[in-house]
């Protein structure tokens, strides 16, 4: 098994350059780079939208925009951040790292991989086009329903809803293709000796993510298709006059929507133990326990969806079931947190930027998880539901737990991808600015929510003024400090101190055996794992 080679067409020996290279590429690293770049751009597009929201909320009253536009910004911000920033970022790392980590020549289905990426720019266009069309007097802008598309509002809405429905369709096809590719790669492309229980945690995280995507994205596609036919072809799926039910949409949507949370988080949970063991210079604690916990979370995530709409009304036994099953998710998560902390315990730790982000991540994501436990309580949820408390909660899970984890991974693997070291000083500055301004943005929102400020409303009572002002100022600092991140990445890609193959003293795994940056075709000879 030591002479595995990769064959290519002759013309591939000199691959095309310029735009044609990127349009036609079947190389997993090129495609990974495109995913990551796309995610970074959309992160700023979605971020700019929410800064518009925060500017409007700087003081009570309507200052900058009408409520309709405010609602549109909120919905598109969420769709972009979830589908066009966080998911592509995770998929980009999957493309880059899974073949390197399992010792494969490339992803298993390279052309499909290319298609998966090129579906993203059209869907980003579909999401943002309604804003532009509205400027020319066509339609009334993007969807104003929030990212959840709840009927009947979404059935009454204008063409913005249709655009979002088709954007979701294209993003869904992209995710399903990506998942097929990852599942096939993991099952068929591992190097000899790389058994399933030797796979790096990131690969495990993505494998379970891919299963979740395969099970749930088509359900979302079905749900928004029913919405489309309800809007234009007279079906009554979500209309009680015809025997349907608007709440049925909530069930269908959140059957996808709750696993989606773990789709966003599981890849990041895979980064964490690997970064921790590198910078603690000792093997991770409880590998098996973490793998089983990943499975536990993955399985539980598809049976807890109704906790997103406790207040919509359902029978008491259903409330109890969804409350207890939701709380049960905290058990595997507690196992993971224990393993992560124990990995650091008595290690010879050093705090380079990836480690700073990871330790910060553990604390902040911990807060996100614990506030989720509070929300899972049916009785308490009646108070928290639809308030700023939930906004703060899911930003602790998805910004701290998602984006900051992605940033940790970026700093961790950037030297491997580019062949250069990034500026450690700027990286640390970026971490501290991000962590502090993030907390200053969202801690006030916990208080606002507890005091009763509803979400998705452009105006508020005077009593909320101070906290909103703090939150807005901090949000702008948070947004602007991300420019440091871009600057650091761009300068690192262009040059700087050469990175060694190992990069980090304590780094383990197959990706660190290749030079930095890795050759165009990763493992032309598959390594043997002992």
């Amino acid at each position: 098994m030591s002479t595995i080679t990769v064959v290519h067409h002759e013309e591939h020996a000199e691959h095309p350059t310029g735009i044609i290279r990127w349009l036609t590429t079947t190389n997993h690293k090129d495609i990974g780079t495109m995913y990551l770049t796309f995610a970074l751009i959309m992160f700023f597009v979605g971020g700019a939208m929410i800064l518009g929201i925060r500017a409007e909320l700087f003081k009570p009253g309507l200052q900058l925009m009408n409520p309709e536009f405010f609602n549109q910004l909120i919905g598109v911000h969420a769709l972009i951040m979830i589908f066009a920033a966080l998911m592509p970022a995770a998929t980009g790392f999957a493309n880059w790292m899974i073949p390197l980590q399992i010792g494969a020549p490339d992803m298993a289905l390279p052309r499909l991989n290319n298609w998966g990426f090129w579906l993203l720019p059209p869907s980003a266009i579909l999401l943002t086009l309604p804003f532009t069309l509205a400027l020319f007097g066509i339609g009334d802008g993007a969807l104003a329903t929030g990212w959840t598309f709840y009927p009947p509002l979404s059935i009454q809405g204008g063409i913005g809803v249709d655009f979002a429905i088709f954007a979701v369709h294209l993003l869904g096809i992209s995710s399903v293709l990506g998942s097929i590719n990852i599942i096939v790669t993991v099952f068929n492309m591992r190097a000899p000796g790389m058994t399933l229980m030797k796979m790096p945690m990131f690969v495990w995280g993505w494998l379970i993510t891919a299963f979740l995507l395969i099970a749930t994205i088509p359900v979302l596609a079905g749900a928004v298709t029913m919405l489309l036919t309800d809007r234009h072809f007279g079906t009554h799926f979500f209309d009680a006059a015809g025997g349907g039910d608007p709440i049925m949409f909530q069930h269908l949507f959140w059957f996808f929507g709750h696993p989606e949370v773990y789709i966003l988080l599981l890849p990041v949970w895979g980064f964490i133990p690997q970064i921790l063991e590198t910078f603690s210079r000792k093997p991770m604690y409880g590998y098996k326990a973490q793998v089983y916990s990943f499975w536990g979370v993955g399985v539980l995530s598809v049976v807890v969806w109704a906790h997103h709409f406790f207040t919509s009304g359902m029978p008491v036994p259903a409330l109890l079931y969804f409350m207890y099953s939701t709380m049960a998710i905290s058990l595997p998560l507690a196992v993971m947190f224990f393993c992560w902390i124990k990995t650091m315990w008595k290690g010879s730790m050093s705090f380079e930027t990836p480690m700073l982000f990871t330790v910060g991540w553990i604390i902040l994501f911990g807060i996100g998880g614990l506030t989720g436990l509070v929300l899972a309580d049916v009785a308490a949820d009646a108070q928290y539901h639809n308030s700023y408390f939930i906004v703060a909660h899911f930003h602790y899970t998805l910004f701290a737990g998602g984006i900051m984890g992605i940033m940790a991974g970026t700093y961790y693997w950037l030297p491997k991808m580019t062949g250069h070291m990034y500026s450690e000083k700027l990286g640390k500055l970026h971490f501290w600015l991000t962590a502090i301004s993030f907390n200053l943005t969202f801690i006030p929102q916990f208080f606002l929510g507890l005091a009763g400020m509803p979400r998705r409303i452009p105006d508020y009572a005077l009593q909320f003024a101070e906290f909103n002002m703090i939150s807005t100022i901090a949000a702008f600092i948070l947004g602007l400090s991300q420019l440091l991140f871009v600057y650091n990445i761009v300068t690192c890609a262009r040059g700087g101190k050469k990175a060694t193959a190992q990069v980090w003293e304590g780094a383990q795994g197959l990706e660190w055996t290749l030079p930095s940056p890795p050759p165009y075709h990763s493992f032309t000879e598959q390594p043997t794992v002992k």
Partner: protein
Amino acid sequence: MATHSNNQYYVPHGSIYPAIIAAGLLSLASGFIFSVATDKSKDLAYLQTPGKWMMVLGAVLILSMVFKWMGTVITESVTGQFKAWEDKSFRIGMIVFICSEVAFFAAFFGALFYMRVFSVPELGGYDLDITPYKDFLATWPSSGPGGMTVSGEFKPGKLQPMAAWGLPAINTALLLSSGATITWAHWGLIKNNRKQLIIGMALTVALGIAFLVCQATEYHEAYTEMGLTLRSGAYGASFFMLTGFHGFHVMLGTIMLIVILLRCMKGHFTPEHHFGFEGVAWYWHFVDVVWLGLFIFVYWL
């Protein structure tokens, strides 16, 4: 683990087809939105014509690129680029793809069960003294309290469902026997009996087309004689969406079967190496199983 006799993996050269298909999908989707925009706002009627042309452009781009893409794959296959290792990738990929299709149909079956078990009975549970829909009976099949219009005449609640033991039963027989004929054809392929292979495939294609003809007849009957349409409340919506998406899959499956039949006649497949055949056969069996679910839960029970 990659344990296979062959130790080369084929990474295809770059391809422009995926990016053009994505552009075609963008054109198709936005064209569709423009062409139906007038439903929600009468001011947007002028978008209808450009929308339709965008749909045509998108469809042409997609279909031609799919044609070219599949052509490339077939060329790669017959020139021997795909060996056991690549074959296994395709197999796993096809299984996962079919799983995602199962999840897609599950959404519509889920909607059907939800309406039958929860929403329709619940709508019948209101106090007769206060509900304006006094004629509404919360039984399945239902078009909901709003009722439906059958040939110009308002009929509350109750409607005439599609009978299971007419055309649908014939359709069941057609699809089940097509599952048998494709397996028989597969046996022919494995035994290297080309005659059995081609007759089996041709029979399968014929059964698939017969199914589609019956389905079209049934739809025609529903619309013209029974007044059962997509607008007929919960029953009409779930009936037409479930059978419609299934019929669309049968159509795709039949097209794929025709391609495979032509490839069989050209002798593209060997007893050892015929993933293209098997992938389509798996897809066909999947469509068959979905139909059984439809026959039981949509037509029969």
